[in-house]
């Protein structure tokens, strides 16, 4: 019957994408040795828990969280057994140190490190240890370090040619050092203790000065490209992946500037509920943000940059505190840290096609564990 033989929309492309995922799943499977002891039973039990979490219906997840909020999501896996995106790695910062979690769930503690973040291709981390800024490999091998008092908020540029820089704060001074550990110098003094943000594919930095203005400046020449009028103090800055927009997160506001600073959108005004975190979807101008109000927290998704928040969609609501969100590198998953429930939720796309809850975060990673970056293969 000819009618039934027509391809469905997207059939071929979906097949190509899915083959990559299925092949990864198969290769993971054939790497697992078969053993005739108690371990297969334990693995099967663990897998059953993961599957139970994986098939939690999205509707149940959303409304369950409102109804049964104290304990978090039901059917949560008791530990993080794997990441939903193959060949990716999740960086976690906690009071014990920085953790690098592989897609198969194995993890390594970089003891005593804090404020860790990925280099552009995930080959290195930049992190703090005591009073030192260190560039190290995910296995803990340190490539270089520099000692400064009051170090905070290091971040790697993503210029693209391999000529990278690292920006960091030393008390209220913004400093920049080469990716090879050379050429450390001060770029600006008297700035706010807010993590600076590199504009992708450039050596241009955005930071918040001591008066609350956002300043966009070349780290190579020191030239200021633009600065914003004073506004609600920004607590976080982030560029969209294409460098066209800069997001400034205030205590209860979100402001988005275009890269020239001449256009400005305020999707969330200063009278809104407190904003805890916000993040652009990779390779997109869509963004997700977390608000906290009346004992509840909500993740919202804003599919397009618009002048107000009326088009924001609610992704997930739960009692207590959410604190961080991070997108997977393929933009298909969002991980949400739900501190009050000691859970992380892996949410499949902003349309909540699937929710994988994972509990026991504090036991696994230590206190104050938050996802700090979900990196490239």
């Amino acid at each position, binding site marked *: 019957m000819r009618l039934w033989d*027509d*391809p469905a929309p997207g059939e071929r492309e979906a097949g190509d994408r899915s083959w990559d995922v299925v092949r990864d*799943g198969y290769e993971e499977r054939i790497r697992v040795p078969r053993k005739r002891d108690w371990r297969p039973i334990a693995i099967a039990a663990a897998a059953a828990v993961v599957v139970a979490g994986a098939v939690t219906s*999205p509707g149940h997840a959303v409304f369950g969280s409102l109804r049964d909020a104290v304990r978090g999501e039901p059917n949560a896996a008791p530990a993080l057994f794997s990441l939903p995106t193959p060949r990716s790695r999740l960086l976690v910062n906690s009071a014990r140190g920085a953790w690098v979690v592989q897609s198969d769930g194995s993890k390594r503690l970089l003891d005593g490190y804090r404020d860790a973040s990925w280099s552009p291709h995930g080959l290195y981390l930049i992190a703090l240890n005591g009073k030192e800024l260190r560039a190290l490999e995910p296995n803990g091998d340190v490539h270089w370090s520099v000692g400064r008092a009051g170090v905070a908020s290091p971040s790697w540029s993503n210029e693209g040619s391999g000529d990278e820089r690292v920006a960091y704060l030393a008390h209220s001074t913004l400093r920049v050092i080469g990716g090879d550990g050379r050429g450390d110098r001060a770029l600006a003094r008297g700035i706010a203790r807010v993590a600076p943000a590199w504009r992708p594919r450039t050596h241009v930095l955005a930071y918040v000065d001591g008066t609350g203005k956002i300043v966009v400046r070349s780290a190579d020449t020191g030239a200021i490209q633009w600065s914003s009028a004073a506004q609600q103090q920004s607590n976080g800055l982030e560029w969209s992946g294409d460098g066209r927009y800069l997001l400034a997160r205030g205590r209860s506001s979100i402001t988005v500037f275009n890269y020239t600073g001449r256009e400005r959108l305020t999707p969330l005004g200063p009278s809104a509920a407190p904003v805890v975190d916000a993040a652009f979807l990779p390779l997109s101008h869509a963004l997700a943000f977390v608000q906290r109000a009346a004992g509840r927290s909500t993740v919202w998704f804003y*599919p397009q940059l618009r002048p107000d928040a009326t088009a924001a969609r609610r992704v997930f609501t739960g009692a207590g505190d959410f604190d961080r969100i991070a997108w997977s590198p393929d933009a298909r998953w969002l991980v949400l840290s739900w501190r009050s429930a000691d859970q992380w939720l892996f949410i499949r796309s902003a349309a909540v096609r*699937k929710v994988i809850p994972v509990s026991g975060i504090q036991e696994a990673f230590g206190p104050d564990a938050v996802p700090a970056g979900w990196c490239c293969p």
Partner: protein
Amino acid sequence: MAGSRGDERAWIRGAQSGSVSDLEALFRHHWPRAYRAAYLVVHDSAAAEDIAQEAFLAAVRGLDRFDRRRPFGPWLHRIVVNRAIDWSRSRALRRESGDAWLGLAEAPAPPESEHAQTLAAALADLSPEHRAVIVMRHLLEYTPGEIAKALGLPRGTVNSRLRRGLDELAGRLEQDLQ
């Protein structure tokens, strides 16, 4: 579809022994109907991709236990169609619960051919349960008895759903379905 029953047994045997190329042959052979079946039940290309992909991942996880004397398709299709029904039901529940943003979720991509468009539009008027039995009967070409077994339904229920569903489709698809 190309690929005989003997080919399929060889692919399964190869995949069980660690051959990625045999697994790929099995995947390429079964993907179009698995995806199409999911799409025709859920009417959402992203969800269809998830459902078909997860069915294959479940198949990979269970590959060692699979009896290669049995055909692979029915096993896969049972997973696909049941998950597609579950997905459609959960979406309907969310709509009833008044979660407004869900109505804004990604619109499905338009069907690529006139026939596919006609079919998708006609099926959209049916419940997911009716869509599922019609898809299993006419796309996947199972008998009512096989459909009953796959979906865990009495055979009489399958027959009545087929009759009612086809009656509703008849006005729009009369020529194609006869």
